[in-house]
Every structure is written in C-alpha cells, then in structure tokens.
C-alpha cells in the first residue's frame, strides 16, 4: 500500500514537471511532436530507474559507510553522467532511429534536473531500496505522461493563430500552467 502511494504520488499528485518544476528544459524543448516526446519519455524512465538503483546503493553503501555524505552532489552527478553515456551507446547500437530522433536531448538528460532531483529526494525522504525503485519508475512515468499530453496539445497549437509575442515559449508556459491547474485536481487523491 505504501509503495502504491509513492507511485501514484510520483505520477500524478506530485508530478516532477508540474509540481516540482524538474525537467522543464526537455519539457519545453522536446514537446513539439508526440513521437519524440514518447521517445524522450522512455529514455527518461529508463535512466531514472537505473539512477534510483545505482545512487541508492552508492549513497548507502559507499558514501554513508565511509562518512562522506558531503560528496553527495559530486558523486550523484558523476553516476548520472556515466549512466547517460551508457544509454547513449546502447541506443546508438540497437535503435539508431530513436537515437537520431532524440538528438541533442539524450546527452542533455545529464543536465536534466529531474534525474538529480530524483536522487536528492530519495535521500531526503529516506526511502529504502524498493521504495526508491518504485519512486524512480513512477517519476519517469509521470514525466512521460505530462510530456506526451503537452506534445499532443502543442501539435494542435501549431495551427492556432496566436499574437506574435506569445508564439513559442510563452504559450507553452501558459499551457503548462493550465495543465498544472488541471493536475491539481488529483491533489485530494493522497497526501505525501
């Protein structure tokens, strides 16, 4: 039950994008087409699940054991950067189409704050291994969900007749605001 709560919270009520503002750069950058949005989402789910596992192990079995928690940020960012590198090599070999579609955004997952945010929240909330894993998967799915919804809306918006000043980023931000309002409807579901 506890695990289900963590999962639903990560996907809906405390969504990483709309509640914690993590991963806004890819959210604004890759959300113009549904296909790339789904691809990016899958890459993020994958990297997040791996990150949750690896950073948990490193934090509890290396940093805490040797009394080095102050190296937390440096260690986490190194782990994430190497993981992204591995995923990139893997995709280039086994799915060149997806690799090309993701383009610059795959290496940018390294500076996607949602990945580091995930690791930090996991430590902050003192999750155990399984909770951390569920949290990672949930956060990834939540990110993909919002990114795909946004891409769907933006595909329609491309045909809208907007005032010039609002084209591009401003209308995307305002749409995200309305989406955040809609997601507030889920907030009665559970409390974290």
């Amino acid at each position: 039950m506890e695990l289900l709560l963590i999962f639903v919270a990560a996907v809906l009520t405390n969504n990483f994008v709309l509640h914690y503002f993590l991963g806004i750069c890819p959210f604004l950058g890759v959300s113009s087409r549904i296909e790339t949005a789904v691809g990016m989402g899958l890459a993020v789910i994958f990297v997040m699940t791996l990150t949750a596992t690896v950073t948990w192990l490193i934090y509890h079995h290396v940093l805490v054991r040797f009394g080095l928690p102050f190296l937390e940020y440096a260690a986490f960012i190194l782990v994430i950067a190497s993981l992204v590198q591995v995923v990139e090599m893997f995709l280039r070999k086994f799915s060149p189409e997806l690799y090309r579609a993701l383009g610059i955004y795959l290496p940018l997952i390294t500076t996607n704050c949602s990945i580091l945010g995930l690791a930090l929240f996991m430590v902050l909330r003192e999750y155990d291994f399984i909770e951390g894993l569920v949290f990672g998967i949930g956060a990834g799915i939540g990110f993909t969900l919002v990114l795909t919804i946004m891409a769907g809306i933006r595909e329609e918006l491309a045909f809208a007749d907007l005032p010039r000043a609002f084209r591009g980023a401003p209308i995307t931000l305002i749409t995200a605001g309305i989406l955040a309002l809609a997601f507030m409807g889920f907030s009665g579901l559970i409390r974290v």
Partner: protein
Amino acid sequence: MSRRPWYREYLKGLWEENPIFRMLLGMCPTLAVTTSAVNGLSMGLATTFVLTSTSLVVSIIRKLVPSQVRIATFTMIIATFVTVADLFLKAKFPAISKALGPYVPLIVVNCFILGRQEVFASKNPTGRSILDALGVGSGFIFALTLLGSIRELLGSGEVFGHEVIPSWHPWVVMILPAGAFLTLGFLVAAMNIIEERTR
C-alpha cells in the same frame, strides 16, 4: 576570443543574453523558488556565486583541460562550488536554506552555468569571463526577483514581506505551481513585445 569592449561583456547578460527571458535556460529553479521575492533574490545570488567562481576557475585552467573531458571537468567544478554554497547557506541562513530546499543542490544541473563555461569561459581570459559571469548572473537575479515580486504581490499583496496593496484578496494560485508557469509565460511574452518595440 571575444573582441567586444569590456563593459559590453557585463551588459549583454542583462538583456540580449538574459538567461531566463531571452535564452530560456535554467527554468527549473526559476519556476520553483520564486514564490516570494526574497527566495528569488537569494536563489539568484547563490547561482551567481557558483557561476562566477566556476568561470574564474575554468578560465584559469582552460588550456590544461583536454576537450574530451571538459564537460565532466566543468560539472565537477560546478558541483564543488554548489557544495560550498549549500554548506554556507545551511550554516549562516538556515531559514533560506530550508525554503530553497533541494533546489540549492540542483544548481549543479542549472543548464546556463554549464552553458556559459562552454560558450565563454573556456575560450576567454579570466577578466572577461568574470565580467560575463557577473552579467549573466545579474540578468538571472533580475529575472528571479521580478518573477518572485509579481507572484508575491498577487499571491499575498506583499513584496519582500512589506504590505503593498492593503486588504488585497490573495490569489492563492499565484503561490502554487500553476501560477509560476502562467506568470513566466506572460512575462516572456511581455519581454518579446519590449524587444520588438526597441529594435
């Protein structure tokens, strides 16, 4: 190497290369911590400290770093200064540190810090790099404080904790995440209009 007059290195960060309004980088902290003007300002100062220190170090060692490992090197330097800033805030300003929460460590992945190293500090001498970092940092502080003030004003009728509009009926939504997106959306649109008029 850049050949602009030296004061332009500072000034360009305020407007034409403003990280928030023109480049749309570093959005996560911008949206997350601007629930009040004070939070926005302290986040801006912390980020500027990290950016300037990193630019200083990177411009000094720019000829020693092989280009294959430069991103990793820059990131580690950034992470070091973020740790310094985080420990400093925790020790001296625990209230602010608490309000900013995990967004202080998240300065590590603030894309425009790495961006400035890649675009500027790794190619220019120390003096110019520091001016560039201070300029972009000031642009960031300006954007965050403006956004924080607007949200605080509409959300509670106060700015920096001082009552501005007496008996204001607070728009709670401005303090919530949705308010951040809406305010920034309208601000960027406003900046686009100003840019168009002045051109």
